[in-house]
């Protein structure tokens, strides 16, 4: 294949990585702090939202998805959609049982 020229994946530099790390640590402190409040059913939702934000930082920057070719983003979306479908349909059962 012609495309064997070394693809330039030198994405972020040391500085960006450290900034992301700081963000991740802050979000961790945030999620621990929030856990102290009594939010009943919302607890899980808030915790998951923060976890999703942290994961997208890791996926996009540490794992480079943001800088990769589109095909990787498509692949990730496919996996994401399947994940969503699995949860949604299982809960179509669990959530609606008498």
């Amino acid at each position: 294949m012609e495309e064997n020229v070394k693809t330039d994946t030198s994405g972020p530099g040391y500085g960006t990585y450290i900034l992301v790390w700081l963000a991740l640590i802050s979000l961790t402190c945030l999620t621990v702090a929030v856990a102290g409040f009594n939010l009943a059913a919302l607890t899980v939702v808030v915790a998951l939202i923060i976890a999703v934000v942290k994961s997208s930082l890791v996926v996009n920057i540490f794992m480079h998805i943001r800088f990769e070719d589109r095909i990787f983003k498509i692949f990730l979306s496919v996996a994401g959609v399947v994940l969503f479908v699995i949860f949604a349909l299982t809960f179509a059962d669990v959530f609606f049982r008498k």
Partner: protein
Amino acid sequence: MSEIASKPEVLHVKHLHKDEKGAKIGMWLFLFTELLLFTGLFLLYAAYRYVYSADFHRAGFETHTLIGAVNTIILLTSSLTVALSIAAIERGKKWISATFLGITILCGLFFLVNKYFEWSSEIGRGLYPGSPKLLNDTNGINLFFGLYYTMTGLHGLHVVVGIIVLTFMLVFVLRGKISSEDPVKLENAGLYWHLVDIIWIFLFPLFYLIN
């Protein structure tokens, strides 16, 4: 007549260049399989938590939030160091890369040590699958701890594998088999480590922050 069969150049034609992008595609696909593996467990957790929310909340008091938080910070830091290690090798800085890689491995080991103390304490307090204390308690508590040990245990197994893989990578870096010309192995190993980190990012709030 037998030239074609014995020409060594002909035999090597199929590996003209190393395909970096292909290796990366293959690695991401493998990561999807790991993701889907844990999905099954997260699905069970979601279903049982929905049914036994009060019990899960109560069980959350038994887990060590502090150790969990410390372990989270450790893994996040190790993700940073492995990313820095890769950035270093891409810039040809072999020794910096090796150092960061070593720190990553140490973080992993630190994580496992913490886990050892954590589990020992919980088992010591009679909180293990099939223990009398658990069996006497409600169903929800039983399921919580069943999932707790299964999920954090499987995750821990992946940490062990990750440490082994990264150690091999460290050797390759020191020996020059991984370099700025060919950083693919380290990049792929890094991807694996980041996934291990991401799984913990979700495990942490689900098992440690529900009180």
